[in-house]
């Protein structure tokens, strides 16, 4: 330790150095100020002075982790591919049989060997980017390449994110945050939402709307007796009731431009809607050709309304009447406006904190912190007299700095984050104690006072660095591997270690230097 020979240099503070330490501390406090002001005063501050953001566990709110059902996306891709192949072969009037899809591929047999190459090119034309292999027995295998598969999955997630955002925006909660996480997940954070049931319902629906015709006069309840080209669709209101609906989609919900809740002639809640030009024309044609017949409005494979067409509807707008509540039509209109999800969303995780619990947590955290400071503030002077007071001043500066840094970097304060601050308070004096104990050792071994003060800082320095770096390793890991509130804890703990190193080393040293130069003491008080 060669530099231990120049202990004086380490203690000495030039005016410049004092100014730097003072300015850093003051700037820290300046950034911390907005946290103790009320809303009104805060509004008048410049925009860079912002308080710490409160996590959902402190301000109350709801956290939802959603997963896009990529298996459903893949299954739909395959069904679509199967339909594309069927359409292509039919159009070219090529004979085929055994058209079916497995989990990953579509198979079809072309009985006439002559037609295989024609079939291949027809399929290639209709299903671009797909891989087609000829197998034995005139079978063709059509595979979706991995790249296309991932692209489509990724697009489905992006689109889901957009739809979720639109739905939540339409619902009107304040400052929602909707982010993508990993490949197939979406994090939704809703500050201030104490009971997310309705939002969960909104997010949980795919909201695929289609208009079909009902097969007239077919009172079938068994799927095996269905007339060709029809399907059984359950009724949304009456359990067990089903409708025989033609498979053909007359108009799809994608053609909607607007949907609003409103009231029908009897004052019952309805949803009125408007199509775009193409949709309006299609709807007009359908209603013109089917006067007197029943239309089926199908939402997520349930018939929500089955009105009889009394007259052609040509204006491009219409309404959905059914057994709805006012809340029901509001949500339905919202879902129709925001559009359908490409795939169902699963809710993997939900954490909701009511506003009253959040407020209680803040109070509890504040109280524990203040109490912690007071207790440490009592103990340190008992253990180290005036130097204990220096440590407490450094501790106070540390709190101001920590809160200032947290505000400056825009960190989110969580309840475990408050625990991190409290812990930092307890541990912050560690560096002080290391330094003081060193000073006493040096002084007792016969060095001059000034020498002891300087080498106390010097000798304790490596120890402080070593012991804090290991703490930073733990904090860093917590940050990168933790989630949500635990991350908040990691942030305050890590930043707390850094600010406490500054305050214990720089500020304490400054105080000791001032004490030494102003009071000209002869002996060490500790």
């Amino acid at each position, binding site marked *: 330790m060669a530099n231990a020979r120049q202990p004086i240099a380490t203690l000495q503070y030039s005016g410049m150095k004092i100014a730097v330490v003072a300015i850093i501390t003051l700037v820290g406090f300046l950034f911390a100020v907005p946290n103790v002001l009320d809303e009104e005063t805060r509004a008048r501050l410049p925009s860079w002075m912002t308080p710490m953001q409160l996590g959902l*566990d402190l301000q109350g709110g709801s956290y939802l*982790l959603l*997963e896009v059902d990529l298996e459903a996306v893949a299954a739909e891709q395959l069904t679509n591919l199967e339909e594309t192949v069927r359409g292509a072969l039919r159009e070219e009037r090529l004979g085929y049989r055994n058209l079916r899809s497995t989990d990953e591929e579509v198979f079809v047999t072309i009985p006439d060997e002559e037609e295989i190459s024609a079939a291949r090119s027809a399929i290639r034309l209709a299903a671009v980017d797909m891989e087609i292999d000829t197998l034995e027995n005139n079978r063709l295998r059509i595979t979706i390449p991995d790249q296309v598969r991932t692209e489509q999955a990724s697009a489905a997630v992006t689109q889901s994110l957009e739809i979720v955002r639109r739905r939540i925006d339409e619902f009107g909660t304040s400052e929602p945050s909707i982010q993508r996480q990993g490949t197939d997940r979406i994090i939704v954070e809703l500050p201030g939402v*104490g*009971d997310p*049931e309705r939002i*969960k319902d909104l997010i949980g629906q795919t909201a695929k709307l289609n208009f079909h015709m009902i097969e007239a006069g077919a009172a079938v309840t068994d799927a095996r007796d269905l007339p060709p080209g029809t399907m059984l669709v359950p009724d949304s209101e009456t359990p067990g009731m089903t409708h025989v609906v033609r498979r053909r989609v007359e108009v799809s919900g994608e053609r909607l431009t607007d949907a609003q809740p409103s009231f029908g002639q009897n004052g019952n809640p309805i949803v009125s809607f408007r199509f775009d030009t193409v949709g309006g024309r299609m709807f007009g044609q359908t209603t013109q050709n089917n006067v007197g017949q029943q239309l089926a409005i199908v939402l997520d494979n349930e018939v929500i309304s089955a009105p009889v067409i009394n007259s052609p509807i040509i204006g491009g707008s219409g309404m959905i009447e059914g057994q709805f509540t006012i809340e029901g039509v509001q949500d339905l209109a919202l879902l129709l406006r925001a559009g359908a999800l490409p795939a169902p969303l*699963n*809710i*993997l*995780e*939900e954490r*909701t*904190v009511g506003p*009253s*619990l959040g407020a209680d*947590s803040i109070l*509890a955290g504040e109280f*524990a912190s203040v*109490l*912690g400071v007071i*207790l440490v503030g009592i*103990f340190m002077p*008992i*253990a*180290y*007299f005036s130097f204990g007071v220096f440590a407490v001043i450094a501790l106070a500066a540390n709190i101001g700095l920590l809160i200032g840094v947290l505000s400056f970097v825009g960190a989110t304060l969580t*309840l*475990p984050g408050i*625990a991190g601050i409290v*812990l930092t308070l*307890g*541990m912050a*004096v*560690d560096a002080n*104690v*290391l330094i*003081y*104990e060193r000073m*006493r*050792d040096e*002084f*007792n071994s*016969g060095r001059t006072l000034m020498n002891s003060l300087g080498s106390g800082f010097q000798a304790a320095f490596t120890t402080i660095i*070593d*012991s*804090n*770096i*290991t*703490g930073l*390793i*733990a904090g860093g*890991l*917590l940050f990168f*591997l*933790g989630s949500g*509130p*635990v991350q908040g*804890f990691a942030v305050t*703990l890590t930043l707390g270690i850094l600010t406490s190193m500054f305050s214990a080393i720089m500020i304490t040293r400054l105080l000791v230097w001032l004490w030494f130069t102003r009071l000209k003491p002869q002996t060490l008080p500790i």
Partner: protein
Amino acid sequence: MALQPLGRMVSRNFKFDFISVRAIPFALSAILVVASLVSLAVQGLNFGIDFAGGALVEVRSDHDVDLADLRGRLNGLGLGDVSITTFGDTGRDVMIRVQEQEGGDAAQNVALKLVQGELGEGFELRRTEVVGPKVGAELIIDGALAVALALIGIMIYVWLRFEWQFAMGAVLSLTHDVITTIGIFSIFQIEFNLNTVAAVLTIAGFSINDTVVVYDRVREMMRKYKKLTLPNLLNFALNSVLMRTITTTFTTALAVVALIVFGGEVLRGFSVAMLWGMIVGTYSTIYVALPVLVYFDLRRDDMVGTVSNDGQRQVPEYERGPAE
């Protein structure tokens, strides 16, 4: 005797022989570790819903709660074992835990709705948490990974800064702390959740901090006092940082106790784990991290110079009392 600072009194008047009595704490540690491992193997951990999945509902009632009635009604929902506890001063805060339901992620939500429906009016929803099986499993892996990586990272750092014997000692004592802390959660079946993992990592950080401080001293003294035997030297190093250990542990404990008492229900498990971890961490520095150096054959040749075998304890300069 005039009024003296506590720090001076302690460092002047207390000298303990920590190392020669090491057999007793070694035995104690061994018992604790074995008990922890056995408990972990036999009854495992009482995983909270973070890891086990399921639903948790915390409500505040506006009337006195008939716990038996509530228990009857909620257990009648067919959701398996529903745990209901009250806490707080008024006894009107109720915590309801529903175990993980069969049927994947959606089923947990259905359970939550059932519970909320059954509670009916008069209950303010304070907190709800629903964790599906998929996330629960991931959180367990992440948590274990974080602890393992922390141990490895710290070991590498100590190894770089000190000799390998120190790194081994540090990891041994950290492993001891981690196992016994998790063991306590298993033995007393205290709920083990995400916050507990954070606590375990913080404990690791705190414990290693303590250990490194003493190691630093040991290394320094090995260079300075070449004639001291290793046990004596370790003792000496321990005593010279004793006041620091006491102060840091005490001030941190003050803060943690404030958290336990006033920090609220959500943080209680975390704070209790912290307090236990601090005690174990301090203990393990003295009785695990240091004594094992004797067995790892730490020699002065690893540092500087040679060992003197006379076994004579040389009184170092700053044990002779203040130069008055």
